[in-house]
């Protein structure tokens, strides 16, 4: 069953179209990797998918409703690029950040034991329970991204949207992070991931969408490696970096 249907979507900043005529469905439990060169509209497409932007034409249907007016906020977990710059000085703790996952469920009332349990379980699930009282701005990049995942889990999100989450994260933490994503996907959480490292995407994703304003490829990773879609999207001049895990 498709939880997300992107149908012939076009979006432009002013006169410059950044996403044009894109049609993609995302099934429940899928792990979709979004790849494409810099400035190819990946982030914009992701924002359209989770309703942060409204398409100029075409439709995005998320959990059965138009995405931009969807009221399913608690089902969506968003993990931005490493956020060191914006959250660095805010004296907020990891637990306070993860508690935000409960806010869509409980915006003004007292936190119940169910709320607190969900927060504790989420912290434990991503293995940062021991960091709960630390300032989030003082964590390493990998730990911080785990805190954002924990926030999504506390929200009981069944869709995770990640925009290049491991930029600036060291190699070891990055492998552990993708291992965690893989496990969460096995548990049934749908994942949409923007990632510039093609090797990671072909290793972990169940579906790949290759974008450069228009959609160049949509299918499984094996077929993707066999086609010229990547070269076409990147303008044919890029040699593909393959990773063997």
């Amino acid at each position: 069953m498709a939880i997300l249907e992107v149908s012939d979507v076009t979006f432009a900043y002013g006169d410059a179209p950044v996403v044009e005529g894109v049609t993609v469905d995302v099934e429940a439990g899928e792990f979709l990797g979004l790849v494409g060169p810099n400035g190819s509209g990946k982030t914009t497409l992701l924002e359209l998918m989770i309703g942060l932007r409204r398409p100029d034409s075409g439709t995005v249907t998320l959990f059965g409703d138009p995405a931009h007016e969807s009221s399913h906020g608690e089902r969506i977990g968003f993990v931005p690029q490493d956020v060191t710059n914006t959250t660095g000085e805010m004296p907020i703790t990891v637990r306070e950040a993860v508690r935000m996952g409960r806010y869509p469920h409980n915006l003004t009332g007292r936190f119940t034991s169910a709320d607190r349990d969900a927060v504790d379980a989420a912290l434990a699930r991503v293995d940062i329970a021991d960091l709960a009282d630390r300032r989030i701005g003082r964590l390493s990049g990998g730990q911080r991204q785990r805190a954002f995942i924990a926030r999504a889990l506390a929200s009981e999100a069944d869709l995770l949207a990640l925009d290049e989450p491991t930029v600036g994260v060291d190699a070891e933490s990055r492998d552990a992070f993708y291992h965690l994503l893989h496990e969460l996907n096995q548990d049934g959480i749908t994942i949409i991931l923007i990632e510039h490292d093609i090797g990671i995407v072909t290793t972990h994703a169940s579906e790949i969408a290759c974008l450069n304003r228009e959609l160049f490829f949509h299918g499984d990773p094996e077929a993707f490696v066999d086609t010229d879609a990547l070269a076409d999207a990147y303008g044919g001049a890029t040699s593909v970096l393959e990773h063997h895990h």
Partner: protein
Amino acid sequence: MIALLFSGLGQLLAPGQVGTVDRILRFLLDDLWGTVLDLLAELTGIGILSSAFMQRAYLAAICIAVIGPLVGSFLVHREMAMIGDTLAHSAFAGVAVGLFVNAAYSVVVPPLLSALFVAAVAALLVQTLVDYAGAYRDTSLAIVLTGSFAVGSVLITATDGGISVGINAYLFGSLATVSRLNAGILLVLSAVVVVVATVAYRPLVYVTFDEVGARAAGLNVTRYNQLLAVLTAVVVVGAMQIMGVILVAAMLVIPVAAATPVRGFKRSVGAAVCAGLLATTIGVTLSYIYDIAAGGAIVLVAIGIYAAAKVGVRLRREQARRKHNRDVSRSPSKTVKPDGGDDE
């Protein structure tokens, strides 16, 4: 909310009910607050506390110390510290409108209320410029700041200098402007700010921490941004009487900056309020004793607290580093924390 607030205040100030308002103010400020401070003066032997004039000044100081850092905590961590300054200048235009109307037509509009109205409108204008016009945040702020100050200066000069006498008190702040009515207005504004900020605490924290994440989670970010801007306008107008237009933004920023080393957002807000209380009460006292401007004295004390907090953190970090080095040299096998650890 603003409309409701105004209609409420409007009713309060209707001629027939002035007597009731006066009685309530007398009870709250003289009977309740006055008696408490009289007792305190007797117990401590501090004479200043028993003067009615200073009792109102201390009440205003406490209100400002609570609401300034409370709202400022959300502004500083979004790098919106300058919005306070912008709204203060639009509040100045509002004061000028009030004084102008009072001088030109023989109606009585408390300048604080016209300031509240103009600053609230300016707050929404700034947010709209940022959201829709695509203007950069600091450009929008600069336009509204200078624009409203221009309106103020034009209105003041339009009355042949007749109202420029009264304007000085608002520009630089003064303990003398805290009349019983102004203290009452500040008390009501403070109560509104505390209640609204408490009820909207979670969405405001979420939007401050991660605006995009908050939108993805389904929060109406635009509405909360507007709420924050209007709350800022209310704080600025309330604090303006003592702090003055030019210095009022300090109470939104300096105590919050001083409390930044505290771990945990909620605790840091509490610490910022404590820093604010220390700054305003000491500042008001110094202002009375040495007959100097209250706003300036408060800001200088606040900066002193900020500097002391920074130095304290630096010393503690240095101490921790030395202790760490000692421990490492004693047991070289001990692992080093990769991220340096927190200061508190």
